[in-house]
């Protein structure tokens, strides 16, 4: 392990967090809030630590896979911790554990909150809370790569460790350019959504907050009852569409911009994603119509928003789906596992892995019928190599194991079964709301500090797709 190089990169990362904090400072300044000081304290601490670390002069400047994982894992823990400080210093969230929970929830684009009363919190603090979604969605380190000079070949390791999906590919030969393109598309989508939401009648500040929450597929709102508070169909449609867009692989938009429109619809993962979304909306609509809502139109409206919100792991809500019939709730629960596409801002297991798992299962069945036959798993006409498949199978296993372990710890609380299980699923998949107590109208404030810490770690583990954080716990990882 090249500790010097890892520390140096972490230092740079903390300095980047200062840059990310500046918009929130500006908002605080505009509204002339006293919470401005909370940011200034945090920035001073970040500056001291960040500069100290980044002045380290490593002798060996190479970053290998190991260092990449370490930078990403420790980096995310650090930014979540420092990102919590404004909440703590301002007094908006008096407990440090709660602040860390809120900050991890922000950066990992989960959107689970311990705040019972959001609307009275200072604007600057709320802005920071939502802006963490935006930064965390595409990746803090990817942002650092896009804006900093001379990212070498080693930075590909970092990007691989941070970007979701089983195999990360560059769009263009240079990592820095790839990061720039991704952020370019990201910024473009954000701007379009802000404008559309403003046109739909939301106040500008609310349009900003909800755009960050949507494109980062986060889910923090400035209202206690989330997007439902506006009862604005136009805004709901805009948010639904943009949630679904941001649950899609951003590489597809690059193809789109390059004029390869057909390629998008040929993408198997995208097709599966669209099929799951449509299927879920149709099923839930049928289930809701007559049971809960009187008209088909209303059923579709609420079904579509909730399905988009859960599958993209955003976590906004326009209604309390806790009161829906079990069938609908179960479908939503299954969608929580699926998550968005690889290379999107969404969480979860990812559609591509689900696709691979099904194809592998099918292949194994075929092999039982013809034991000597040679089959290969194909995606988009290309054979997927054995190692990727083994990785995906391993990933799924560890995912379930972590889920079980976390559920066991949270179960110590003695809350009901549904709350316990869904609170873990919703945090590990970076969604936000679960069912019962942690449902769309509830929150996480009633948990103990232990559970909150476990759930915070679940969020970061889920966002980084398990391996980086898990590696930190391996003693061999630290051996020189």
């Amino acid at each position, binding site marked *: 392990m090249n500790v010097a190089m890892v520390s140096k*990169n972490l230092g*740079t990362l903390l*300095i980047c967090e200062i840059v990310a904090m500046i918009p929130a400072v500006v908002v605080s300044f505009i509204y002339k809030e006293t919470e401005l000081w909370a940011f200034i304290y945090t920035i001073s601490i970040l500056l001291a630590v960040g500069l100290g670390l*980044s*002045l380290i002069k490593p002798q060996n400047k190479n970053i*290998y*896979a190991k260092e990449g994982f370490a930078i990403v894992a420790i980096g995310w823990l650090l930014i979540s911790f420092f990102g919590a400080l404004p909440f703590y210093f301002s007094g908006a969230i008096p407990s440090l554990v709660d602040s860390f929970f809120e900050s991890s929830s922000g950066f990992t684009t989960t959107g689970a909150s311990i705040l019972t009363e959001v609307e009275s919190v200072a604007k600057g603090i709320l802005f920071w809370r939502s802006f963490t979604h935006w930064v965390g969605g595409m990746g803090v380190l990817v942002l*650092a*790569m896009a804006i*900093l*000079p*001379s*990212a*070498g*070949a080693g*930075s*590909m*390791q970092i990007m691989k460790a941070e970007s979701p999906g089983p195999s990360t590919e*560059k769009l*263009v*030969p*240079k*990592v820095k350019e790839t990061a720039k393109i991704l952020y370019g598309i990201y910024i473009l989508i954000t701007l379009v959504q802000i404008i559309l939401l403003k046109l739909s009648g939301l106040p500008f500040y609310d349009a900003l907050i909800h755009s960050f929450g949507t494109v980062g597929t986060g889910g923090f709102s400035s209202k206690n009852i989330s997007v439902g508070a506006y009862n604005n169909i136009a805004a709901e449609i805009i948010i639904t569409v943009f949630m679904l867009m941001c649950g899609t692989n951003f590489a597809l938009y690059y193809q789109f911009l390059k004029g390869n429109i057909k390629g998008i619809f040929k993408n198997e993962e995208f097709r599966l994603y669209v099929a799951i979304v449509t299927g879920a909306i149709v099923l839930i609509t049928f289930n809701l119509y007559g049971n809960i809502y009187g008209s088909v139109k209303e059923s579709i409206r609420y079904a579509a928003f909730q399905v988009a919100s859960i599958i993209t792991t955003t976590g906004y809500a326009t209604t309390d789906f806790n009161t829906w019939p079990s069938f609908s709730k179960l479908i939503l629960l299954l969608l929580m596992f699926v998550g968005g596409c690889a290379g999107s801002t969404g969480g979860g297991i990812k559609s591509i892995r689900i696709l691979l798992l099904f194809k592998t299962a099918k292949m194994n069945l075929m092999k039982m019928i013809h034991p000597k036959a040679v089959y290969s798993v194909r995606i988009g006409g290309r054979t997927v*190599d054995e190692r990727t498949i083994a990785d995906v199978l391993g990933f799924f296993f560890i995912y379930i194991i972590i889920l079980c372990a976390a559920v066991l710890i949270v179960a110590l609380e003695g809350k009901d079964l549904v709350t316990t299980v869904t609170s873990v699923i919703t945090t590990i998949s970076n969604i936000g709301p679960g069912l019962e107590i942690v449902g769309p109208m509830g929150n996480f404030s009633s948990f103990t500090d232990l559970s909150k810490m476990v759930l915070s770690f679940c969020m970061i583990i889920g966002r980084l797709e398990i391996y980086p954080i898990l590696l930190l716990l391996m003693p061999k990882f630290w051996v020189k």
Partner: protein
Amino acid sequence: MKVIIIGAGKVGYTLAENLAAENKDVTIIDKNAQALEKVEAHLEVMCLKGTGVSANILLEAGVAEADLLIAVTGSDEVNMVCCLTAKKLGVGRTIARVRDPEYAYELSLIKEQLGLDFVINPEYTAAEEIASTLGFSSAINVERFASGRVRMVELKVTAGMGIIGKKIKEADKYSSSSVLIGIIVRGEEVIVPDGEEVIEENDSIYVIGKVSNIYKFCKLYGKYPDKIKNVMIVGGGRITYYLYKLLKDMNMNVKIIEIDKNRCFELSDKLPSALIINSDGTEEEVLLSENINQMDAFLSATGMDEHNLMASLIAKRLGAKKIITKISRSSYINIVRDMGLDSIIIPKLITTNQILKYVRGTALQSLRRIVEGKVEILEFVVDDTSELIDKPLRKLNISADTVIATIVRKREVVVPHGNDIIRRGDRIIVITMEKNIATLKELEAVVIGGNQNERRNGIKKFGDIINM
């Protein structure tokens, strides 16, 4: 500039490494996932798995917008077909590696139809380089500039040479400065020396100048080159084939030792007058029985680096005078030098240099990269728009890492001093540690804008401080 490289082998990797370092957008295509993994882990290039012959893969690599396609897979035929397909799909220029002698000599016939802009034959070029080194036996390596009128030789400063302990300017005075000591390599360090630099034992010095003057210089300092008459080559590969033809023209006696019987027959079929011995060249007995101690030069050019090293070490011990070793992996170079084998030929690097020169464009007459690419030697023709002409050199603000080594006119070769002037139409040979100079204009920026340079370095340093 967008470049597509087909084949992620040794040459493909080195090319990708160098081109990416020159800030080109490189996409590399290979069938072998493992080879690509290595590239992906170490280089800033895009990797694509598949065969370069397939139009689909080429389109996916963006062949239509690419400026250059370089095909360096193991197969000549694949390389040629890749270039043909790519040309049809609209690539700018194509380079193919073609090394089978059967094609190599007839390629000019079909070059145009295949859409090949440039053909590289690493073995032939390596053979040429070996031949020129053999033509000047006291040098470790010999490079030719200005169509052979100017040479640069690498000499090892060994104990007893009169030049040890002298400052460059004293050495210049003594030899009436007909040549220029352009570069000194001391261990890992590379120095572009000024007059005050003192030469030490075991330095490698690069001496540049007119051929006859270099001879004089060597004679003066006790490195008088012997005439090479008898050459022994171990390994009967393509290099040996090309080299034999070249050495025959230089009137040398060549003895080839090849282990494989069939290959021996093939060679003797193609080279009717050659003396070919079917035996193992890495065995001491065999070398002794073939009178290794009488040989003026010994070349080991088998396909295995290990065999080449062993054969060379044995030959050195048995008393062969000049030893040249071919190796394929450049990472060995320092180890090999430590073993006392100085003349090393790495076909991969030769190929890379050729292609880099081609990539940088036509303004560059020749490009040599020495000491693992740390130093570049460039040749330009100065036209009348240049800012360099008609000014005494001392008035040009030259950055410390750059030297104008030679000015070549119609009838004379000048090793310049402060008062010399570059005129229109001169060829200049420049030694520089600056990277990525492709045109005379860029060179002028380096030469004239010394201060600017400093500022740029400052920015670079700043970038290093905050870099990730």
